[in-house]
């Protein structure tokens, strides 16, 4: 379980997160949505132990989150940062050397499921196949939490579908938690249990997808639009 208590984060004088309090239980698939610059990536990096809060606290199972949490959390960045001269096989070997929980058999199975050859060089892969490799090596870790920064962004529908199916197939939603930032809410909604909405460094809503449909009678996309409208009206009314 991840717990954030009144977390604040600044980059220089720029405030990226403001008073964020969140409780993320085990075994949920959570979508993190919000405009660019709303703090999604910062929040993910904080949970991954890549950033430390300026104020408040971030804990995982009661332990303060530090860089060492990387042993239990699989973080997938939104940038391409593989060594391009590696082959896929060498990349897998590299992951084996870095992460104790990396499962080679699972990695090969996922890569096969996604139709990526182990012999290809990273630099010769298409953008879509680099996206597939990225998700494959991330999911091949037996982590407690997967933090995915924009796993679908900039990829064609076939790759997005592959990634979605890989996520369903290769994570165990009973004991593993997945948190992913995304702009493709309409498409991603069927994959989610909960949605966290951010705006200007603040968490403005945290709801279950079933609840949104049951209670508000609309899908997550329309709900989000109405949420933003309400917020703007409130700001103007001030």
């Amino acid at each position: 379980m991840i717990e954030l208590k009144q977390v604040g984060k600044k980059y220089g004088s720029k405030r990226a997160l403001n008073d964020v309090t969140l409780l993320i239980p085990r075994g949920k698939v959570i979508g993190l949505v919000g405009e660019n610059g709303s703090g999604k990536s910062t929040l993910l990096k904080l949970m991954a132990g890549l950033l430390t809060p300026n104020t408040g606290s971030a804990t995982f199972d009661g332990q303060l989150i530090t860089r060492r949490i990387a042993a239990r959390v699989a973080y997938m960045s939104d940038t391409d940062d593989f060594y391009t001269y590696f082959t896929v096989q060498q990349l897998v070997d590299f992951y084996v050397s870095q992460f104790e929980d990396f499962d080679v058999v699972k990695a090969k199975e996922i890569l096969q499921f996604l139709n990526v050859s182990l012999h290809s060089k990273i630099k010769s892969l298409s953008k879509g196949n680099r996206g597939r490799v990225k998700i494959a090596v991330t999911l091949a870790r037996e982590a407690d939490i997967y933090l995915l920064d924009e796993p679908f962004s900039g990829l064609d529908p076939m790759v997005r579908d592959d990634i979605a199916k890989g996520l369903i197939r290769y994570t165990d939603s009973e004991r593993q938690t997945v948190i992913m930032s995304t702009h493709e809410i309409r498409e991603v909604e069927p994959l989610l249990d909960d949605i966290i909405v951010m705006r200007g460094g603040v968490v403005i809503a945290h709801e279950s997808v079933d609840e949104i449909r049951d209670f508000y009678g609309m899908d997550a996309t329309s709900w989000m639009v109405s949420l933003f409208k309400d917020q703007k009206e409130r700001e103007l009314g001030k």
Partner: protein
Amino acid sequence: MSIDFLPDKPIYQQLIDRILGDIMRGTLATGEKLPSVREYAVEVGVNANTMQRVYKELEQMEITETRRGQGSFVTEDQEKIIALRNEMKEQLVTTFLQSVAAFGFTTDEIVQCLQERGGEID
């Protein structure tokens, strides 16, 4: 991603309806094994937790049964399926009649129209 869901109803309910439809039409036969939760979730592109809930509710409705270590099966009890058909029929007709009344149609008008057009969808 693989099937389109209506926006105003929880996804798990839409999946329950889909499976009930398959059972009532006979696409899923009595006693037939359902795919595993994970397999079916991957096939339709939904979260495995959602699919787990679908299977749990179908079991609570006694339309399916879980056999330990073997998976979920459509009930072999024909009575249960007949009861389900009747219940769904009643529900459908109730909703329909409410709209009929709201628009001020007479029952005769509607019955006639149904008889004329009944063969269209088969």
